[in-house]
């Protein structure tokens, strides 16, 4: 046999992988013609689902940034007992199956759950409500952001933080004026990843919040429901989600490449 058989195997494997991974994506656009695509997007259910997805993912992302950024900064810049354990706990939702996450959310915040009484006393309704969708999205998407943000803050030169302090800046000002801008490309990449995950979230939302049009039915849930009745509409909505997800992935690539040029590492994508 020729000595060149191994490179040939490598090439064949890559061709197979690329074909298999891109064909379904390409098929969505090939099957849904531009005209049908626009028609289907006029559908109320599709419009409601897209609007709800946009609103819930934006609110979820805001919550993730607000809490996740300082939490990641703490994990990145202080060493304390059990830091590794805490990091692992934060990353746990990455490997929990989404349906299990939904069950867990019900067990914690559902009417008869651990904190169900407290949630009800606070006048908040989560199950079968838009707020519940946001809770589910925060749960599944935040680890993507926190992981990336932690790596980004770890890559900031610690002497910069010290220099900021000696120049008269408090810890809070150092965080806002030096750490966040210096880590910005990594934070942006983490945002894009978390948003992408939230946008595609299905299982936890279905189990915890249900699938009611205009209230808890996000785009992925609408796709599954439309799939039974109107395949063209399902295709059209899928095409929109693919386009948005591809744009997010391109954003991640753009920011991570910027970071690598500066010699700072980025955590691998889980």
């Amino acid at each position: 046999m020729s000595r060149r058989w191994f490179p040939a195997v490598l090439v064949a494997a890559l061709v197979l992988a690329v074909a298999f991974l891109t064909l379904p994506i390409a098929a969505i656009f090939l099957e849904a013609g531009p005209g049908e695509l626009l028609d289907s997007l006029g559908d109320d259910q599709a419009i409601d689902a897209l609007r709800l997805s946009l609103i819930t993912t934006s609110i979820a992302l805001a919550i993730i940034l607000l809490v996740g950024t300082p939490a990641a900064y703490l994990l990145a810049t202080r060493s304390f007992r059990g830091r590794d354990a805490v990091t692992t706990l934060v990353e746990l939702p990455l490997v929990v199956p989404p349906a299990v996450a939904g069950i867990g959310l019900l067990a914690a915040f559902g009417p008869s759950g651990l904190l169900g009484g407290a949630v009800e006393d606070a006048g908040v309704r989560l199950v079968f409500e838009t707020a519940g969708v946001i809770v589910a999205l925060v749960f599944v998407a935040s680890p993507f952001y926190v992981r990336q943000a932690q790596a980004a803050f770890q890559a900031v030169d610690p002497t910069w933080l010290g220099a900021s302090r000696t120049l008269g800046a408090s810890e809070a000002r150092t965080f806002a004026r030096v750490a966040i801008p210096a880590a910005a490309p990594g934070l942006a990449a983490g945002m894009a990843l978390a948003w992408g995950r939230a946008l595609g979230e299905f299982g936890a939302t279905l189990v915890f919040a249900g699938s009611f049009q205009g209230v808890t039915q996000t785009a992925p849930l609408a796709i599954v429901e439309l799939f039974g009745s109107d395949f063209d509409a399902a295709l059209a909505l899928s095409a929109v989600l693919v386009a948005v997800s591809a744009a997010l992935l391109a954003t991640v690539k753009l920011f991570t490449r910027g970071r690598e040029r500066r010699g700072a590492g980025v955590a691998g994508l889980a």
Partner: protein
Amino acid sequence: MDTTLRDLNLRVELSVQAGRTLAIVGPSGAGKTSVLRAVAGLMRPREGRVSCAGRTWFDTAAGVDEPPEVRRCGYVFQDYALFGHMSAWRNVAYGLRDVPRSERHAASTALLGRFGLAGLADARPATLSGGERQRLALARALASGPRALLLDEPLSALDASTRARSVRELRSLAEEAAVPAVLVTHDFEEASALADEVAVIEDGRIVQQGDPDSLAAEPASAFVADLTGSVVLTGRASAGAGGVTEVALDGGGIASSTDAAAPTGQVAVAVHPWEVALEPADAAVEGSPRNRLPATVRSVTAVGNRVRVGLDAGQPLVAEVTPAAREELGLRPGARVTAVWKASATRIVSRGDG
């Protein structure tokens, strides 16, 4: 400023007057940078006291620990720690919080001009040369009127041609700022060029402190002698005739010194390379120098207007001669010579571990 720090292996007590510069010299890992970090408030010593201009910054006994932003030390880090995401003027303006926002740009650019960085106000630190980066770091550190100036290896990142200029600038800046300045370095020459006083740190302890000249002339230990550029030979001391101490060198031969060997026994002999003369190996013994060691030339290196000759005299030895002597003696690796120096130029120092 008065500092007492204690860490696992760090215990120093130092004070510096305003307008004067103290250099802490020692090898890497001796705890030099930790001293600066403790003074600036970036590290908390387990025990000790730091005060500046009558104000206590840190005192474990009294439970005082001012944060770095209150102490406001002008700290020039070894790699300068310039903020890479900010332009040069924004780096300077970062410390100008007492200046109204609308005047910060003007104040920063004016300061950059004074540091020879006019026209580079909008440049990012990454695009500046080593010398420019250092001046930017200094401008930033001095912008906000620091209460003390801390310099970590200020010359190490500069090339030789920038160093001379930097030495002059640093000296005049430290005087002008009229605050106590502390710098740390592993290079005694750098310390003596920049500082009024030098403290040698070894394993977290100050082993000798004084003005640079007196340290070079009277090293207290083999470690200090080596650091100040002396050649150090080890041997065993005994009292010789006429108050002269004789040291039987470990590599063979005897060295005499006019120093009294306080502890006889294992000692080190220190001599400056420029005190060591070379004669042909077969030269007749003449003249007064008492110390004569046969040696083989190992290396010959021109350093400015001198020639450094590395010798093997049982132990490594270095002589500095003129280029003319190099020609006359035919100095090249492998040549046999006799190294000669006076007993009065020979210091006997304790051996230590260095």
